[in-house]
């Protein structure tokens, strides 16, 4: 089974020890291919470690837009032995492996960063096929499947580059081995050298010394392939496409940060945590904001002492009328629960950008999961209104970053924007984002006329009980509008009240905002149904980052004659029951797909619509779902398999 419709689409992987430049090499490769007119989807995998453990970056390049990864690899690029040990068995027949020829005899047991479990697994693979427990054994296995291997003597190549550059500092130059590896792969793929050089210039442009040595290294490796190897029978060659006009190559955390800037976020707090910190750091490095009127705006990014301070500081800032957010991941969000209730109680607009990772507890801190859905919905004690919106990909992350601020201000409540590591750390070619969006601030004034204060002694009724559950909001510091806030139940002015009648009125007022939100929020922000109009009766339902992989799997199934509907639920709370019910009309099979153990969306669907989930496809090994494995699982279900819960286990 292969997802490669034609040769002009490739699944590529580079690996290496953390800190050896895997990320920058992958970025150069991605940029090079994007410049050639290809769509890119790249996914980062790394350990919770700074230096030495195995990290890798998979990149799909394709003529068509892609937003998911595959199980198979068509080209494996390495400069250490561990990458070959861990990934060579995933290289498809006809695929290519680039490796360091001096490492051919490396013994599996001698690679200290390969943990016991992986060592056992790889060892068994080699033993079962009668191969020696070394790198050559791995390569022989791959060759037996029809893979082509290219051994590069990196050390000798570096020596040659040093000679060309007249620079004897070999150890420094040896750091360019990552660029040599990708340059070799680019040469093998038949991509023109100038695109590679221009990508290197973009990545190392600000460091002239690194730039020249990397270009020299790249040029050398590029020509080395041409002169030393016969590359005619390579299956995977790509031919340049039309230029991708007005496209950006961007990560999810960058997209969310840029959305915040456009959406008017001017204050963000955070406490360092993977994978959420990337967003705050990007925001801070763009803290001076260009404006249409030629003036500069700015966003103040504050690193706090913990996540409780992060959310409470953000709430304090929001009270001054500023669009405010905090960004975190599961463990940090756990600490924020109490303050979330305070924001709900005091009707404070607040955005919490929640980058999920694999839990519980510290879990797999650098790995993938969507297991905080029910927690996000239920976070905080007592009943209070909040909105939970989940983006399905990098582009949605951008546009939703603006929407969540609108929701927060229109409904005056905390909004949790659910993302996960598969969105934040992945990169993708996206159509350049539009500036043409609306900022909606709801009932908000910063000037109050003296006669408008209606409370006792001329106080402002911040929580005025009227027909609408939403009252006029003013920033603290506004003249003629003094009010109070308290986490206690309170009067219209915000003073403590334990009166039972007042309590009911205030609870009703706050909770009714959820009904209003359900009434007013646009249908395609609630849920989207792909192929609803078709006559397909089998339905896949999911949320968040699984979108890309599902859509591609469904496309392939459709080509094969099995059409399925796909419901992507975006608004998770308040739950868009009517919308989802409509999309489930006539459904024969309902298949819930989620990257968590307990099918959390599935239980929400059942609870709200009454419709049972027929099949569950789940994954919780910390690796994101690939199109390949979703496709296979759906095939099994459609062919009458009676397993009600399928656990996916792909990924390295």
């Amino acid at each position, binding site marked *: 089974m292969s997802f490669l419709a034609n040769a002009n689409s490739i699944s590529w992987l580079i690996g290496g020890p953390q800190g050896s430049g895997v990320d920058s090499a992958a970025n150069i490769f991605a940029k090079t291919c994007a410049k050639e007119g290809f769509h890119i989807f790249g996914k980062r995998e790394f350990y919770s470690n700074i230096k030495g453990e195995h990290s890798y970056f998979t990149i799909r390049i394709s003529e068509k837009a892609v937003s998911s990864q595959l199980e198979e690899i068509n080209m494996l690029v390495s400069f250490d032995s561990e990458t070959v040990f861990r990934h060579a068995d995933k290289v498809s027949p006809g695929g290519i492996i680039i490796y360091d020829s001096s490492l051919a005899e490396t013994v599996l047991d001698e690679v200290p960063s390969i943990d016991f479990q992986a060592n056992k697994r790889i060892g068994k693979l080699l033993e079962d096929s009668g191969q020696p427990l070394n790198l050559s054994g791995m390569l022989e296995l791959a060759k037996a499947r029809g893979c082509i291997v290219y051994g590069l003597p990196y050390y000798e190549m570096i020596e040659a580059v040093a000679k060309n550059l007249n620079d004897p500092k070999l150890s420094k130059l040896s750091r360019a081995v990552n660029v040599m590896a990708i340059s070799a792969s680019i040469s093998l793929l038949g991509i023109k050298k100038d695109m590679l050089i221009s990508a290197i210039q973009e990545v190392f442009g600000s460091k002239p010394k690194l730039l020249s040595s990397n270009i020299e290294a790249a040029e050398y490796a590029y020509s080395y392939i041409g002169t030393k190897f016969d590359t005619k029978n390579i299956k995977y060659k790509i031919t340049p496409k039309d230029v991708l006009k007005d496209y950006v190559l961007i990560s999810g955390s960058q997209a969310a940060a840029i959305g915040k800037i456009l959406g008017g976020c001017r204050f963000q707090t955070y406490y360092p945590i993977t994978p959420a910190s990337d967003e705050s750091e990007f925001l801070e490095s763009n803290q001076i904001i260009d*404006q*249409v009127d030629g003036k500069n705006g*700015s*966003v103040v990014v504050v690193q706090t002492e*913990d996540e409780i301070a992060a959310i409470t500081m953000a709430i*304090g800032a929001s009270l001054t009328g500023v669009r405010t957010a905090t960004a975190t991941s599961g463990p940090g969000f756990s600490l924020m629960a109490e303050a979330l209730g305070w924001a709900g109680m005091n009707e404070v607009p607040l955005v919490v950008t929640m980058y999920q990772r694999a839990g519980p507890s510290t879990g797999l801190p650098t790995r993938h999961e969507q297991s905080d859905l029910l927690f996000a919905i239920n976070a905080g004690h007592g009943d209070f209104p909040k909105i939970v919106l989940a983006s399905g990909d990098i582009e949605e992350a951008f546009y939703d970053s603006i929407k969540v601020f609108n929701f927060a201000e229109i409904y005056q409540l905390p909004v949790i924007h659910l993302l996960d590591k598969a969105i934040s750390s992945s990169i993708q070619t996206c159509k350049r984002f539009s*500036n043409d969006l609306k900022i909606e601030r709801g009932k908000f004034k910063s000037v109050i006329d003296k006669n408008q204060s209606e409370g006792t002694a001329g106080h402002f009724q911040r929580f005025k009980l009227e027909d609408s559950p939403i009252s006029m909001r003013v920033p603290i510091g506004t003249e003629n509008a*003094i009010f109070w806030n308290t986490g206690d139940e309170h009067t219209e002015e915000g003073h403590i009240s334990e009166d039972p009648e007042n309590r009911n009125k205030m609870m009703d007022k706050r909770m009714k905002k959820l009904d209003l939100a359900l009434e007013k929020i646009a249908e395609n922000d609630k849920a989207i149904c792909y192929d609803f109009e078709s006559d397909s009766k089998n339905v896949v339902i999911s949320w968040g980052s699984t979108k890309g992989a599902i859509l591609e799997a469904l496309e392939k199934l459709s080509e094969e004659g099995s059409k399925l509907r796909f419901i992507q639920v975006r608004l998770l709370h308040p739950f868009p029951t009517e919308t989802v019910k409509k999309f489930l009309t006539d459904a024969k099979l309902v298949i819930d797909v989620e990257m968590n153990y307990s099918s959390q969306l599935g239980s929400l669907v059942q609870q709200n619509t009454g419709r049972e989930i027929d099949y569950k496809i789940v994954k919780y090994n910390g690796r994101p779902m690939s199109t390949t494995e979703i496709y296979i699982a759906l095939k099994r279900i459609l062919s009458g398999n009676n397993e009600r819960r399928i656990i996916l286990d792909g990924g390295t």
Partner: protein
Amino acid sequence: MAELKLADYKTTVHNDWCPGCGDFGILSAIQMALSEMQIPRHKAVIFSGIGCSGKTPHFINVYGIHTLHGRVLPFAQGAKIANPDLEIIAVGGDGDGLGIGAGHFVGAGRKNVDIPYLIFNNEVYGLTKGQASPTLRLGEKTKSLVTPNTNNSVNPIALAFVSGFTFIARSYSYDVKHLKDTIKRAITHKGIAFVDVLQPCPTYDDIHTREWFQGKNKPDSEKAVPRIYKIEEAGYDGIIHDESEVNEKMSKILEFSSEWGDKIPIGIFYQNELVPSYHERIAENIKDYFARPPSNQEISDIENKPAARIDKILDKLQIN
């Protein structure tokens, strides 16, 4: 503008503190300070934590934000960073600030946001009926404790100093004039100002009572000699004029902070405005921060279109 009177800073909200509570003196001192400084009512915001002291904002006729247990400082700092034009005062109890909120106390010292912070220090958790607070000393047994206190006490003055507070003072709730003057100094101080306000809890603290502070219960003296003395009257000046003075002051502060029993110092132990405030640190990177802080930026035009342009950022990510 008409002069604001003391009464203008009072609300009509029923005050439910116990009769004789030290909080009353603190409340009056805050109201007097605001009135004497003629701070416009809408410009002032009182942030509080949870506990008896947490109710303070409801009795003061300015903006009042009654937050969560232990979290008053980050709430207040967020507001002050977003809008440095506000006159923000943070208040809370000793359990609030030095128990559950101790991490924020340390964090606030490191940031030096321009806020005065008053701890109503009565050694007990009053509103939950008299448990030992972080300032009650080891082995002391107030009347609602089952056994003598098994925890040692924290030294708030020393903690404030090592955390980086740039103004550290102590006052006493029944010396309203001293307290009011100290609060005014804390408000005008540039940076984070900590005022440790000693305060009897007439209901639960039967050890350090008003009489105890007055020295009336000393067994060996005929005449009551108040335990509290003013360090300025003893010739001490806590103001730092030059960084080289900090080390010398440090030992003095630690000495003062460990005095207790017969002699309890109050006054300004330390004031150092040579340390840049958090706001000044922001302005290093955002040059027009004081003129256009987050709260003073238009984020959209009259057609609700975003004021920001993201083109330059996107250009850097553009493929070709």
